[in-house]
């Protein structure tokens, strides 16, 4: 199995520890992932801003970079969703189709490809899950409150399998955090308010560690937590899992 690691630009620059944890966690699960250095971005920031045409060269670059791999794994469901859903704008060559199917969110990869649903290790904290909308509603990594009262999902299962962990029951299980890519600056007021409300739900229900599998949501939530100086630690799920699995 030839696995590439895709580390989105903002993780590369601001959260290198998340990229490192992803790589190490995969290694512990027996997967030697490779990081092709010529990678840049999936193009989502441009496309979501209405500049899909300007993003096409980025899409092509992405496909070229990753077409030799069986899987492309990223600690960011949003980028993966973009590759799977919106690379339909490219001519659907064999390479393009392959890369679209090969792109996986880290947690999705662990759950559906490696078929790991439980992990040995302890994390004795109260942990609140942030389900990213693109991971949950887009990649179907978790049940949606719009459809069913049953709260279940890949991240939920992996986390719940850790010893000593307690998962927070939120008042609103899966409300969007308000990051939304460029939305976070073009609609800064609403974006911030959504993030504050999301964090408040965690505070109210006792979250000590806030985690998720999409670093972009977490970057936004972390910014709010730090501004308000709240006693919540924000960690990517890869950091938690890599820390507890030996």
């Amino acid at each position, binding site marked *: 199995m030839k696995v590439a690691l895709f580390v989105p630009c903002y993780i590369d620059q601001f959260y290198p520890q998340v990229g490192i944890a992803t790589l190490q966690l995969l290694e512990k699960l027996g997967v030697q992932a490779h990081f092709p250095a010529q990678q840049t971005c999936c193009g989502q920031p441009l496309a979501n801003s209405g500049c899909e045409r300007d993003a096409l060269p980025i899409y092509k670059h992405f496909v070229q970079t990753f077409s030799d791999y069986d899987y492309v794994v990223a600690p960011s469901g949003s980028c993966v969703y973009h590759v799977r859903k919106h690379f339909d704008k490219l001519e659907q060559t064999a390479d393009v189709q392959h890369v679209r199917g090969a792109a996986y969110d880290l947690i999705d990869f662990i759950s559906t490809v490696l078929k790991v649903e439980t992990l040995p290790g302890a994390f004795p904290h109260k942990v609140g899950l942030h389900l990213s*909308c693109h991971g949950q509603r887009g990649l179907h990594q978790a049940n949606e409150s719009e459809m069913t009262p049953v709260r279940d999902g890949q991240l939920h299962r992996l986390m719940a399998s850790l010893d000593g962990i307690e998962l927070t029951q939120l008042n609103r299980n899966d409300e969007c955090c308000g990051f939304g890519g460029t939305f976070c600056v073009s609609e800064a007021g609403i974006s911030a308010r959504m993030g504050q409300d999301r964090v408040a739900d965690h505070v109210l229900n006792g979250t000590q560690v806030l985690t998720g599998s999409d670093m972009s949501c977490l970057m936004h939530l972390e910014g709010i937590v730090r501004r308000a100086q709240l006693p919540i630690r924000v960690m990517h799920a890869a950091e938690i899992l890599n820390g507890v699995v030996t």
Partner: protein
Amino acid sequence: MSHAIRADKFLLDADRTTWHDETLWFVREKRDRAVYAVPEFQELRELASGIKNHTLSRLDLYLREFESAAQANGVYVHWAADAAEHNAIILDIIQKEGATRIVKSKSMLTEECHLNPFLIKHGIEVVDTDLGERIIQFRDEPPSHIVLPAIHLKKEDVGDTFHTHLGTDKGESDPQRLTEAARQHLRAKFIAGEVAISGVNFAIAETGAVVVCTNEGNADLGVNLARVHIAAMGIEKIIPRLSDLGVFTRLLARSATGQPVTTYTSHFTKPAPGKAMHIVIVDNGRTQQLGRPDFRASLKCIRCGACMNTCPVYRRSGGHSYDFTVPGPIGAILSPNIDMKKHASLPFASTLCGSCTDVCPVKIDIHTQLYKWRQVLGEANEIPASKKWSMKFMGRVLASTRVYGLGGQFARKALRLLPHGLTHAPSMNAWAVARELPEAPKQSFREWYAKQPQPAVQPTQPQIPA
């Protein structure tokens, strides 16, 4: 003015924003409970979507079938290409009747066509009889929601309005007593009404009937007491068969308010003896939308309002922030079809979280259409120039590994070296108004990776820990 600017005004009153958000979330939760209780709900959505798709694919034929059936029922059928024609037709009917007192039940179409001000200008008294609509009519405001038109108001606001217009006690804000005052006031209007105007929820091609769903009973009361009934409908209200209503009536109220069905589901097929019934069929941009393959599914909308109640942006910015007759996610995909320039910011008033798509009872791919409108607006140069050029620049940078590496390093170093006050200045950085920027690490992931002993790129077998 953009949605963001209007939203910021709404957000200024933080407590009211909380209240608005929670009030609508409460409706969303009622919807969830009603949906969970019907095991076949997801199948019903699929069926509703299928029926609507089919209908749109034969729209001209069903419109003809509907027209013939309605005419055979003794109903006058009129066609209006746009809002002006719709208004003129209705005024003409009213004037030929020699009527001046009109009672109207809820119709988003007449709102869309701005019928009320038009009639009033021609000396006609038009009274909105839905309670929420009456409240905002007194206040001279547009509706802020398609199902709950006065949802932006608190009971104290309604109390003030009724004190002014209906003479209720000053400070009276009990919903029960305010509703009773409106009941008494509107009963007199119903009894005096000469012509009743109603909207249409469904128009059945097979029978020529129009179906109107209300909780208050205002459409039934108005129509059945007046001499003339005028029903105004968009061309997309057609469904093929009576039996299709089994699907739609099971979805509509559950999605809208969490009720199992609206109190009244009224089928108006023929005028009562000695009375008259007119149906005005309106295009007003709908055939144009039908011709846009990416956006035609928006015509499946049954106006349940669920996408508004679930939208985290709508709940925190209020319906008026959309400045369009239909607010919320569905409004954001309908409005650019009407006026791309004016409504250019609406498709961007979303995080694309997709919740709207997942509650929509007719499975409109709302968030995908928002994304696609952004592309159309981008191509038409209807996005701010600064955004456009920075995106073009980013596009070039991100397509090249070398330039990309330099740009990222520069930003991170700047963040690390510049003083907090500069990087977090609200005037320069919208992010930093409410959020800290990430702490810039000393080295990027790729810098770290380059220093690691490089693994050979070859197939590995995953080892799963027990």
